[in-house]
């Protein structure tokens, strides 16, 4: 093997990914090759320097911004459906098999009518949607053309196919809670998210489901609306504190731009400290940092109180 080939092996050797036979050859070679030995030492220093840099962490604020933007995008994506897939899927879920073929044909006809209306820009589109939604209980709206050119015989567009639902039941019903949990995370209207949290809050008499707790934590940390964050935080305060909730409270304390929410978070942490909840050294060092930087006197004062407890 040539000298240069051994040089090329150095990094793979340091990754510990050389095949066994090559590793033996390499180790034999460097015993007698001063150049390769020096090169190896130089690589070790370089890798150590890179390794230090590789431990750097991403700023939580950047991560929060990215997550909020992603949530908005995913919300928009969920509302989009493909014309061929979702329309037939929704219809087939509504109809029984014996009449499926007949109504399937009808659905294709409806799609054709809808395309015809849209492509030729009929002024009666609104009426057509309403009638269609009344007859099969699916509302078609937010049509967005991807390919509006009919010259090749095909067009492509997305739309929202919304099936109305109505549910009335016990507030502890699992299905009902699942819908509300989904609403808390995904509803565009902050008022609806707020109402959903209130209902969830009223249901939690027998301890909190882990999934709901995780949702409340996510919302308290990341919801773009401070009122919704506050309501989620209030719900969390009603639950006996554990490590997940403590981490969420510290996150809010360190990152939330609303001083009101930071005060809620620090008050909850103070209460927990008084009741004997234990804080790690890392928690305490974050609180010490908070004493230095928070622009709210009360938050700084309460952070000091927690540290005094230890």
């Amino acid at each position, binding site marked *: 093997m040539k000298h240069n080939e051994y040089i*090329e092996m150095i*990094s*793979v050797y340091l*990754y510990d*990914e050389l095949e066994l036979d090559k590793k033996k050859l390499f180790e034999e070679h460097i015993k007698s090759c001063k150049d390769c030995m020096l090169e190896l030492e*130089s*690589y070790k220093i*370089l*890798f150590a*320097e*890179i*390794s*230090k*840099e*590789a*431990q*750097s*962490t*991403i*700023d939580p*604020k*950047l*991560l929060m*911004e*990215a*997550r909020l*933007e*992603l949530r908005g*995008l*995913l919300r928009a*994506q*969920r509302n989009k459906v493909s014309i061929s897939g979702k329309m037939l899927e929704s219809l087939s879920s509504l109809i029984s098999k014996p009449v499926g073929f007949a109504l399937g044909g009808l659905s294709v006809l409806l799609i054709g009518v809808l395309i015809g209306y849209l492509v030729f820009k009929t002024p009666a589109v609104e009426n057509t949607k309403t009638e269609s939604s009344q007859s099969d209980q699916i509302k078609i709206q937010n049509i967005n053309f991807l390919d509006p050119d009919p010259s090749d015989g095909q067009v492509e567009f997305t739309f929202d196919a919304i099936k109305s639902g109505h549910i009335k039941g016990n507030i502890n019903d699992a299905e009902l809670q699942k819908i509300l*949990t*989904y609403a808390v*995370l*995904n509803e565009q209207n902050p008022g609806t998210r707020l109402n959903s949290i209130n209902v969830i809050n009223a249901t939690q008499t027998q301890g909190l489901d882990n*999934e709901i707790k*995780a*949702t409340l934590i*996510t919302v308290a940390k990341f919801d773009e609306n401070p009122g919704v964050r506050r309501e989620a935080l209030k719900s969390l305060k009603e639950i006996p504190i554990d490590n997940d909730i403590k981490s969420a409270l510290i996150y809010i304390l360190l990152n939330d731009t609303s001083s009101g929410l930071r005060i809620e978070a620090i008050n909850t942490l103070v209460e927990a400290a008084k009741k004997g909840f234990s804080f790690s050294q*890392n928690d305490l060092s974050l609180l010490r940092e908070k004493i230095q930087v928070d622009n709210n006197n009360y938050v700084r004062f309460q952070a000091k109180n927690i540290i005094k407890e230890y």
Partner: protein
Amino acid sequence: MTLSDKDLIIKTQNGDALALEELIYRYDKLVLRLAYKYTGDTDDAKDIYQEVFIRVYKGLSDFQFKSEFSTWLFRITSNVCISFKRKYSKPNHLSLNDENNLDYVSAIPEGNELSPENLAVNAETGSRINKALNKLSSNQKMSFLLKHYEGYKIREIADMMNCKEGTIKKYLFEAVRKLRTQLENSY
């Protein structure tokens, strides 16, 4: 009990939005950090982050567990990074003078207390490495980041970047050689 990636994917495939969120939050710090290291720009990193997870969302319904989720995710991430075109003309490096950039990736390893002097040295080292990284080709840089920052095996990186192990070894060798030259020149 913590659910496995596979459990979360199956739940996501059945329409569970919370499972998708948990799956994303399990890996998104790594994706964002990789994107930031790759581009050196917070806005570009966020754009890549969004693009990666929208592709994950769209592709997850067809995911058939032929590879690990993380391998698939980083394959998407490396594809998006490599094909990423800058929308706006921005300086292609991190600068010590750019306080915004230094804010976003801390050079402080988690849990370590550093003196102001050490902090300055670490920030300077990080800046030099970042500048040197920007001299690498797309494939060299991505191979290097996946190896040295994310700790993947050469075989795994080859799988993610859809090429042979020998090719990855060449990328890594060239990347390390260039980085060493760049760093030596910057002292």
